[in-house]
């Protein structure tokens, strides 16, 4: 887990996209954040990103670390670790430095996990 709890993450991190917003296009973030709402496009940054349970992302994610609670359809490229929490849904190619796919998470796609810097 990137944060001590998802509740803590939701409360302490600035929301990148709010729950009621539907965003189309690409966005970048330059600090750790939580993504709510719907995004059609890519989100990229080098910090930790939490995709909240109410989030629905269609496109791709590039981040330093990723914790997925919601839905993500598209590619994922993460430098460090990816955590797919129970109830999350991810479909698409995933490349990361480490992976923790928990029981109850749904995933379908090609996985490549290689140590950082390899």
């Amino acid at each position, binding site marked *: 887990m990137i944060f001590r709890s998802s509740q803590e993450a939701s409360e302490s991190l600035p929301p990148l996209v709010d729950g009621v917003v539907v965003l189309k296009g690409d966005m970048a973030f330059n600090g750790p954040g939580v993504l709510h709402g719907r995004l059609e496009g890519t989100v990229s940054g080098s910090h930790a990103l939490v995709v909240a349970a109410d989030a629905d992302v269609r496109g791709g994610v590039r981040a330093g670390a990723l914790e997925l609670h919601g839905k993500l359809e598209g590619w994922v490229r993460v430098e460090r670790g990816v955590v797919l929490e129970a109830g999350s849904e991810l479909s698409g190619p995933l490349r990361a430095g480490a*992976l923790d796919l928990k029981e109850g998470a749904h995933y*379908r*796609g090609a*996985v490549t996990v290689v140590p950082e810097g390899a």
Partner: protein
Amino acid sequence: MMLRPKSPKKVQVSCGACGHVQWEYEAAAGTSCRACGERIVMGAAASKKPAAKIRMKVERREIACCHCGHIMAVPAEAQSWQCPGCSSYLDLQDHVVAREHMTAIRTYGRVVVEAKGVAGGAKLECAGAEVAGRVAGHLASQGDVALRGEARLSGGAQGRTLEVEAGAKAEAGAGLDFDLVRVKGRLKARDIRTRRIEVADGGMLQAEQVRLATLKVEPGGWFEGRVETVEPEADEADAAGAEQTGPVD
């Protein structure tokens, strides 16, 4: 006048189990109760102290007959057994395959396939296995399977836990079906169906297709393959349907 031989003297004896009283020759050492069939000891033998029984605590293990499913407890040290349910011969021995062994192995013991060993039979059924050589047929283990060295599982395998030991460079040419797959060395496989995969730091797993419920790749571990999660409940139901209680027919 005819002389009749004198009949031996009779005495009354009572059954210790049911109390039935019957007449028996006095000189008899024992008889059976005509009411309940219990053995009645008579005469001098009755007053004799029975020899002290030597009781040894024998460690046992439970197995299920692969022919009829009868469950029995067999001494852990036994090398073979006869099923009380269907009278089939059951091999309980551990086997070591050090060279080429071209017939199928079906045992309730463990099997070790050494680095130069080839288990060439169509099937290898056992309680557990350690493979450093090659298994040509299907390996069905009721317990754990450890892969070391350059282990080759050409015919696929099934069991409880598959452990790829650190330093191993193993390959599986057909499907692997285990509850847990733990990778500390290298494993190249075609299809894997499991509940959980753990790839440790330094471990490497390459698989064409993986169906699982959970996956953990530690930092420093390598993983490559197409992954599809399956519902644990559905997985368990399938596993229960395919569950084997003994070496597989």
